[in-house]
């Protein structure tokens, strides 16, 4: 039995990354909420194994990017 509200694991970690542009409200608390919303991605408990990757491997792929996310560089849109 699997638990709901989890993400399925993919089959592999890609070699590259992609950047996306996301606009969020210009307020420190809203920005903190946005950063908090990203955190389940680095938690292995957020995943259930569906592909070849384990939940730990999937979370680790995002963990490798966490420093970039949390650097939180604000840019012009």
């Amino acid at each position: 039995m699997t638990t709901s509200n989890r993400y399925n694991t993919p089959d592999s970690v890609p070699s590259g990354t992609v950047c996306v542009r996301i606009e969020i409200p210009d307020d420190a608390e809203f920005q903190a909420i946005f950063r908090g919303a990203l955190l389940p991605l680095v938690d292995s408990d957020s995943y259930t194994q569906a592909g070849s990757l384990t939940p730990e491997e999937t979370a680790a792929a995002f963990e490798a990017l966490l420093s970039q996310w949390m650097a939180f560089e604000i840019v012009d849109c």
Partner: protein
Amino acid sequence: MAQGFLTLTIRDYDAEAAITRLRVPTLTAANFDAQAGLRQTFLTTALAMTEVPAAAGVYYGNEQTNDMLPDDDPLSQRENKWLVQYHDAVTAEPGHFYIPCADLTLLDPNDRAHANIGDGDKVDAFVTNAEAFLETEASNAIVVDEITFVAR
């Protein structure tokens, strides 16, 4: 008051975790070896009562229980957390942990997303002591990289 605890985690066939938390004598330097022996024997016999050959995880140590009353500062909110990011001093493997009820006066005045590392005060004291006390899964020292205000 400190009291010893043994937390036993068992993962079943469906990968569901079941956690049993037990009180044990407070660990001291004088009784540590004896209690560790009793713990191991207890675990062996307890697991023999189950279908699983080994525990998925065992936590064994003292727990300090202090005042359980709510904090009297309305700014003390569990949802406001410090996300502490670090890396393994040897392997460079990244990791993180959280500290709830962040004191947001410690934010960098020039960067409202992060704690003010380099403040020469509370933040620096925390970083110094975290690096002195904590270790990684590989049993190496940690190096704190960033402390970020997150709300969740």
